Each structure stands twice: as structure tokens, then as C-alpha cells.
């Protein structure tokens, strides 16, 4: 375990004990939620993790590097942003997936675009958003989020 993970466990451990001392019942309720969330997502998580292995085996790093690293950055960023908008995987499992692509040599610019639209733009949840807030709100918010995802990605490409 790296220092980062260890310290995260440490912080969480302290928070857990503090929570336990303060209110036992509330803490156990929250642990029930944690367990429910984990059970709900575990199938998807295992699926994605083993999918990473398949991708890395059958798509050699050179290909990933060529397509997502060296080819036209604008096009690959735009496509990644679009894929992120229609994909329905939780951000939680997206990080190792994107991490594996970056490790294999993909540029971070399309990676950022994908991660940002994945969470902020929701084409699948669009009908729900339209229903709750009206068409105008939903369209403008989603379009702006898409545009800014690309701006964030390109800016990161300049900074990093």
C-alpha cells in the first residue's frame, strides 16, 4: 500500500471511531448503507477490472499510444467527451479504467474529457432532468458542461 492509501485508511479509521463514540446507532446505519452500496456495485467493479486485463492484452500499448496519444488531439478529445456523455459506468470504476489507458501511453487530455463528461453530462438521465427542471434548463446545462469538459481537458493539456 502506498502512503496515500494508508493515510486515507488512517483518516477514515479516526472518523469511524469518532462517529462510533458519538452515536453508535447512526454509525451502524451508515455502515449498512456502505455495505449496500458495495454489494450493489461489486459485479460492475469486478467486470471492469477484468475488462482492463482484456483490453491491455488485446490492444497493445503501442496502439493505445497511437490512437489516444499521438493522433489528432482535438478529435480524440471530442470523441472521448462524447463517449463519456453516453456511458453509464460510475465514476468510481472509471478511474482505474482511465488510469490503465494513461499508463499505457494515452494522452491525459482525452482522459480528462472523458472523466468530466462521464459525471457532468447525462444523456441517459436527460429525460429525468428535463422532467424535473424543464427542457431549457436541461439542454443548456448539459451543452455547457460538454463544452467546458473540453475546455478543462485542453487547459490541462497545456498545464501538465
Amino acid at each position, binding site marked *: 500500500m502506498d502512503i496515500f492509501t494508508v493515510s*486515507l485508511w488512517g483518516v477514515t479509521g479516526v472518523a469511524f471511531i469518532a462517529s462510533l463514540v458519538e452515536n453508535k446507532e447512526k454509525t451502524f446505519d451508515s455502515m449498512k*448503507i456502505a455495505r449496500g452500496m458495495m454489494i450493489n456495485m461489486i459485479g460492475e467493479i469486478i467486470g471492469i477490472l*477484468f475488462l482492463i486485463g482484456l483490453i*491491455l492484452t*488485446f490492444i497493445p500499448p503501442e496502439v493505445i499510444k497511437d490512437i489516444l496519444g499521438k493522433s489528432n488531439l482535438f478529435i480524440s478529445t471530442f470523441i472521448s467527451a462524447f463517449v463519456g456523455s453516453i456511458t453509464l459506468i460510475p465514476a468510481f470504476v472509471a*478511474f482505474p479504467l*482511465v488510469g490503465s489507458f494513461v499508463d499505457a501511453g494515452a494522452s491525459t487530455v482525452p482522459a480528462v474529457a472523458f472523466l468530466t463528461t462521464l*459525471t457532468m453530462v447525462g444523456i441517459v438521465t436527460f429525460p429525468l432532468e428535463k422532467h424535473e*427542471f424543464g427542457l431549457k434548463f436541461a439542454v443548456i446545462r448539459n451543452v455547457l458542461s460538454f463544452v467546458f469538459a473540453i475546455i478543462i481537458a485542453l*487547459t490541462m493539456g497545456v498545464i501538465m
Partner: protein
Amino acid sequence: MIEIIKRNKLLAVVSLTYIFLFIAMPDKAYLSVKNSIYYIIEMLEIMPVIFILTSIIEAWVPKEVIINGFGEKAGIKGSIFSFLLGSFSAGPIYAAFPICRMLLKKGASIVNVVIILSAWAVIKIPMLANEAKFLGLRFMGIRWILTVISILIISYIVAVFVKKEDIPIQKENNLSKIIGINIKKQYCIGCGLCEKLMPQYFKVVDKKAKWKEAALNDIQINKLKGIMDKCPVKAIDFRREEIICKNSNRNIKCN
């Protein structure tokens, strides 16, 4: 069996691929497992801690205090509150829809609602930890700063184009009689908390909580109010008499 496969489509497809590979090209199969192992170990190290931390934050951050602080308050304070509310909540973006609608009714501005929705989607403390682990601290930090700036700009632009009148909000009639419980399926994450706390009323079927039709008296109604508050996505609501049903929306059935 079929149900289990249906619920885990991705896992089923990946498993089948592996079974096929182990028969047809064992060397490729081993290589795939080897490639996955690193990410599996990393995930196992961080997954439980993220779920626990998310739940503790969810339990202890005084959301009610933040929500009550909104009112007509505008300006920087309201925006900071919005960022906090979004950042400290669990669940996907659509889980924020019911809370944001409630805030709009209470007088929150469009700017703040967009901030909550966006922050809810991208800025999660435990998720930032996950991002830093797989993509690096620097990557996470820069993306976080750029995202916060972008959210502010987006929210102000949305508020220029969308006025409150554009948002459909129905009046709620709190005086009508409670005749049952309504669970908004789209928002339920199937955490099972309601079932664990009140198994006589709730059951999780196919990842969604279901209301077991049962008679209600005042004492039970009060108990149920507690469950509603505990529901992490606020998907449980009272089903009221006719009047509301006619006004209520198409997706949520009133049978």
C-alpha cells in the same frame, strides 16, 4: 440465475470471454488475468475505505443545516453552501434532482442549483481520493481547480438564459390524507437501508426498494418520516389522496 446475469451484464460478458479464452488461447487468458491483477489489488485497497468514508460523511454532514441556510440568501455565501452540499453528498447526479427541486421551492437561485448539481456530479471527497490513486495527485488537483472554476462560469451562464418561470414546479398539497408510500424508482439506489430498518414495510426487489402494501396509522406514519429522512437519496415519499396524483408527474405512478 437468469436474474443474476441480467443484473450483471458486464460481468457476465467478461466472464464468458475469459472462459472462451482459457479454452481457445490459454496464454492470452493468463496474460489478461496478470494485467488485471495490479488494478484489482489497488481497487481492493481503496474500495472499502471509500465506501465507508462516503457513508460517514453522508451521516454526519448536517445537510439540513446547509439546506435551511439557503432561503433567499444569494451571493457568495449561497454559492459556497452549494459547493459544500454537492461535494459532501453521495450518489450519482440524478440523486441530486429531488433535493434541488426542494431547494428551488424554498427560494434557492438557479445559479446555486446548477452549482449543487455540478458539484454533486464531479466533486466528491472520496472520489477525489480514488482519482488521485489511479491518476496521480497532481492530475486530480489541477482537474479539481479547473472544474470548480468551470462550474461557477456554467452556473452563471445558465442563470442568464433560464429563469425560474421556465422550471415546472407543482404545488404540493400537504393537507390531503396520506394513503401510502411512494418510492421514486429512478432515484432509489437499492442500498436496502429502509428494508433493514423497517422490514415490515420495505423490501428490496431487483435492486429497488418496494413498498409492501400495508395499512398506516399515525404512529407508523411518524416512524416512516424518520425512514424518509434516512433514505440517502430521498426517494421515499408519502402517497396522498387523489388531488396530488392528478398533478403529479407522468413517471411516478399513482396507483
